[in-house]
């Protein structure tokens, strides 16, 4: 196919180091968010804290963790990822419609 005659630039030391740092930070953040989520649930069960608050909290943590992993580990932050980003958000929109719609209408008829 046409478009094959390109070369690429091997990353230099500085780029490698900053890339490794970012990826490792994403890993650390994911671990921390996971521990927080499990911890929140254990705490909620022991202390009898409001169930819906705990649920909102852990869902929030999940969303943040997914954002970190998608943007950093899956390189959505990199140049040339406009179209993948667009489709990621379309998927979010359709998911929201599906999950929210189904949930609301299964639990609550008004």
């Amino acid at each position: 196919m046409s478009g094959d005659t390109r070369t690429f630039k091997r990353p230099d030391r500085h780029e490698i180091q900053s890339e490794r740092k970012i990826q490792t930070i994403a890993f650390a953040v994911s671990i921390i968010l996971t521990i927080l989520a499990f911890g929140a649930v254990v705490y909620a069960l022991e202390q009898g804290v409001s169930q819906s608050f705990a649920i909102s909290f852990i869902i929030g943590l999940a969303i943040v963790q997914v954002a970190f992993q998608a943007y950093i580990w899956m390189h959505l932050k990199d140049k040339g990822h406009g179209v993948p980003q667009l489709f990621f958000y379309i998927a979010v929109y359709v998911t929201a419609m599906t999950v929210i719609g189904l949930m609301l209408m299964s639990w609550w008829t008004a």
Partner: protein
Amino acid sequence: MATVAVRAESERKKKSMLWDYLTTVDHKKIAHLYFWTGLFYFLVGGLEALLMRTQLAFPLNTFLTGKAYNEVLTMHGTTMIFLVAMPLLFAFMNAVVPLMIGARDLAFPYVNALSYWLYFFGALIMHIGFLTGDAPQGGWTGYMPLALSEYSGFGMSYYAMGLQLSGLGTLLTGINFVATIVNLRAPGMTYMRMPLFVWTSLVASILIMFAFPPLTAGLFLMIYDQLFGGQVFNVTGGGNVILWQHLFWIFGHPEVYIVALPAFGIFSEVIPTFSKKRLFGYSAMVIATALIAFFGFMVWVHHMFTVGLGPLANGIFAAATVIIAVPTGIKIFNWLATMWGGRLHFSAAMYWALGFIATFVMGGVTGVMMALPPADYQYQDTYFIVAHFHYTLIGATVFAIFSATYYWWPKMFGRLLNETLGKIHFWFFFIGFHMTFFIQHLLGLWGMQRRIFTYLPGQGFELPNLISTMGAYMMGIGVIVLGINIVLSFRKKPDASPDPWDGRTLEWATKAPVPEYNFARLPLIRGIDALWLEKMAGHKEMPVIEDYHDIHMPNSTILPFMMSLTLAIAALGFIWKEEFNHSFLYMGIGGIVLTLLVMFFRSVIDDEGYHIHKEEIKREEMKGVGV
């Protein structure tokens, strides 16, 4: 890395036609496959329609009753939507989209072939029930709990498995076209210079990508409940039957836009060409297409107004439904504005475009009527609904397919269809269509329910049903005329001009027949209606961005056929383990293992294609006109 072989033309043409088509990954040949298979199932679905109409011509008729009628009813809907409308649209998308954007093939030719064979085998699986005595009979919508085995036998398992397979093919096609249109446009073809058919194919492909997964999930759950003891739709196990409806319609509503948008795209090509005037309001058309798709995901509950979800849910979805009429209306006005002041040429293709405008608008307005829940309580499950969706589906999708057939026949087959026969086809089909379906609006309002195999006399239904049946037979005659036209066209040699309609878009710049590699030298695009632009500037050819060079082509392969076959074997094994004997489970598992083996085989073999030598390309190009 092995050096890629150069293969001479004589060597490439050595295969038999059967093997050529079984192993092709060329989008143009795959288009042929989709077209002929789709046309075949159109005849099957049409026959099913005639069987139903024959039964309903007289009250208390005994021609086709009970379970048999329900099977024909279910298969008519399922076939027409999944095995006819979408494949025929894919045929045109495959044939034309790469040419319109100046590409040499789709982004993933192997996957393109796989998509076709999955459709082929999926369609076969759906029909095997006719042989085992248990064809699908739960309606094309497969509502629960009717679709479970205790009420519908194993027919709906054939439906679920067949649909799962061909649905997978469709999903892969959606991804393929998005990747192609995003990545493989020729230089100069920005998004806002793409022909409308490419835009609508892109948006429809995005819809496919996001609408088919809920159906896939629903079908998996249906299969689990029918064949593996699942409890998702079984109330005694704690299941919820409405969940099926939600999953199905979250798919189902975008689905109707998946079949409508490419149809709109076809008309956005045909109307400007035969009005000798550019499409009015290009940007508005693009935005309207995107809006229709966006809102299309927010309206699914309008198929469920009478389920009892309550006035709040109904109200929200009613509002969203009414909104969709706006971008659709904008498109209609823009098509009219395109024709206004143009130099109209009434070719057969153009007849269908004009018929579409009238018919689809009628279907659209009944849609707005149904969008209001209190009114819908009267229309739901009556012939009013049947009339509405036939007006929209046939008015848009079927008319577009017929129009595209006449319009792109020379590009796909190198021959022209006879225009006079085309017009005869049009009049029989168009008049027959309105005879069949207009009266069904009234039948619905007078109280005739849908999905019934007979009705009592003395309710005033007799004459309308008879008229409706006569109309259906007229439509049948129209289709026969088309068949004759097709046969006659193949009696001629493929010597049609490469640009018989004085076209505006890039596909008409290719030679006839279109060479394997589409364009010897990729063109440079300088505006909307790229070819027309060059014609108006007095050029005979498109400008190019490169010199002749060896062109790299993908190899043919039997693997897509094999993989679809092994998946079909697995599907049948899982059904037959319940229907006949538990040992068929091993056939099911075996099929899955074989599929994984084919995938493994594909991955580890280096398949780097072959080159066509630039001398050969130059020779071919010097023979004819075009790029």
